[in-house]
């Protein structure tokens, strides 16, 4: 599976990925989303969220399956102050819940942070704020 991250105003704390099932963790709760049913040329219309107090667009924003059968998923990583952009696409086996995957483009007013399993991490210092 190929994944990329959007920098958003809210998101799960982190994810775990197993085969084509993505589990999102948020506020000591978790919920799994099985994307295996998505077919090539199929249209992703969102996931149903039952447990997490998050809107589906703040968890899995988009997904599609390419002609080779590989799944491509767009996830969310919450960010605070600063100028942020989406990540490059990368293999899900390289996903690390403790690091910032979205791109930090520069500071604006306030202390920048991105949400990881460690907490809100300052991209300039690597420290939890």
């Amino acid at each position, binding site marked *: 599976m190929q994944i990329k991250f*959007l*920098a*958003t*105003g*809210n998101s799960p704390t982190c994810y775990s990925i197993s085969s084509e099932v993505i589990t999102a963790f948020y506020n000591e709760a978790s919920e799994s989303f099985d994307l295996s049913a998505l077919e090539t040329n199929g249209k992703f219309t969102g996931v149903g969220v039952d447990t997490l107090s998050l*809107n589906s*667009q*703040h968890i899995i924003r988009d997904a599609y399956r390419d002609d080779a059968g590989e799944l491509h998923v767009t996830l969310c990583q919450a*960010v*605070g*102050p*600063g*100028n*942020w*952009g*989406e990540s490059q696409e990368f293999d899900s086996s390289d996903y690390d819940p403790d690091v910032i995957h*979205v791109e930090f*483009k520069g500071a*604006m*007013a*306030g*202390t*920048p942070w991105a949400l990881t399993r460690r907490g809100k991490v300052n991209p300039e210092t690597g420290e939890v704020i």
Partner: protein
Amino acid sequence: MPQKQLTALPTATDAADDDLLIKRDTSSGTDEKLPISVLRDPILDRANHTGTQPLSTISDAGTAAANDTTDFAQISGGSNANFTTMPQVGGAPIVESGSNSDGEWVRYADGTQSCRGVHTADITDINFWIATLPLPASYITLAGSVAFCCVNGDSSYWTDPDERRAYSHATMNSTGYMNLGLSIDVGSLFSGNAAISWHSYGKWF
């Protein structure tokens, strides 16, 4: 006047405006009369913050200005008003701002928040378009406002209402989302994408 004669004079406890003092130039030995107001009035100005005074005597702000530090705002602005860290009110920054995949936002220490962004919508051959879009930063309440407009596309949609007529509506959906809708009820349909420029305003705490 000899010292022993001065000490022999009675002690005064007040003074009138027309009282005079004796001023002796010790180097030349000459005496002059000195109106008491010459000594008294500057002292009163310093005490009452009246008249013309050095800035440093007016307030602590003046002391900061005299120190020429960057930690204090100055009316002159420019580099002198360049704060090295974000000032805080009650422990919270006066302003925070960000830009992410869903738009831009600004938060103020008084709880005010505004967001803006542009969404590309495919409105090819449709009479009605609606979308639920995530905001770049969440609000604390739905009691906010959202507005949007199309900033490109077929200009006749917006400039020739007799030929084509469009209605738009926008609401807060949840504190992190908004609903945008567009209905077109007259004229031929549009083909292509429209850039939807939106703006929201509300409270973040």
